[in-house]
């Protein structure tokens, strides 16, 4: 919990610093986040590599069940969006399902959605998916504690393979990292297909 609050403070500090323009242009315009992410991933990789033997044991004991994880995340997300559509009358169900299908992968989903349905829906998709990513980062320790070790992985959606992976790893145990990466990768690959399918077919 302490870490979550510190995490939010850092996020807010980032917004304020960008607004006050105290950060040099060159940092803002570079792919800053991505570079940090890559360094982060190197260390996540090291921790996973050190646990390879135990992870293999886990995959062996899980077998086909590992496929259940991304499937659970998809089903839960779409059900959540469907339920939410009951309370929002001004938006078609398909729009809500498409935004949900970003699974936190805000850059790609917002681009796809704004191309198919226009700027406004794109911005909603961006905000909603950023919010999902942040929710994943912030509530992972609580979710893991009260709703089982799969809950943070499903909640983080596509971001369980990158941004949320470190916090998921530290709150569910290192051998769940492999499940997290697997689920996140499957969802990341599915994002463009699901969004296009939902918006064009429904």
């Amino acid at each position, binding site marked *: 919990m302490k870490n979550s609050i510190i995490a939010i403070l850092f996020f807010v500090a980032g917004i304020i610093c960008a607004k006050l323009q105290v950060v040099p242009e060159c940092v803002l315009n570079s792919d800053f986040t991505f570079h940090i992410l890559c360094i982060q991933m190197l260390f*996540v990789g090291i921790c996973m590599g050190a646990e390879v033997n135990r992870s293999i044991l886990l995959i062996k004991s899980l077998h086909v069940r590992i496929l259940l994880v991304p499937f659970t995340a998809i089903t839960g997300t779409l059900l959540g969006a469907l339920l939410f559509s009951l309370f929002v009358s001004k938006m078609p169900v398909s729009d809500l399902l498409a935004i949900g299908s970003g699974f936190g992968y805000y850059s790609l989903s917002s681009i796809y959605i704004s191309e198919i349905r226009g700027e406004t829906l794109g911005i909603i998709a961006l905000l909603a998916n950023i919010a999902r990513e942040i929710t994943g980062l912030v509530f992972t320790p609580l979710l893991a504690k009260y709703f089982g070790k799969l809950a943070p992985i499903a909640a983080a959606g596509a971001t369980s393979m990158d941004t949320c992976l470190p916090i998921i790893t530290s709150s569910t145990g290192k051998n769940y990292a492999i499940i997290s990466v697997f689920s996140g990768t499957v969802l990341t690959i599915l994002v463009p297909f699901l969004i296009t399918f939902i918006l064009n077919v429904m």
Partner: protein
Amino acid sequence: MYEIITVIFAGGIIGYIFKSKSRFIMLSEKIYSLILFLLLFSLGLSVGKNESVMNNISSLGLLSLGIAIATVAGSVVCAWIVYRIFFKNIKTDK
């Protein structure tokens, strides 16, 4: 995305080679939790510098937050059910 997978893989090889060096592994764990804060700070930076997000954050923010909460809640409930049925009896240690 491919860069990220490559980097994880490279790290994985390093970690596998040095897995018996427990101090190195512990240090790596420390470093990655510290970088997390830096990552959130930079996420804040990119949200803050994005004009279209900042200008619309009040009007669209609530709706977006609702969608985020609904999808996370749906995922958590489904994951909880699946975890209880299929995963709970699997012995794993931290």
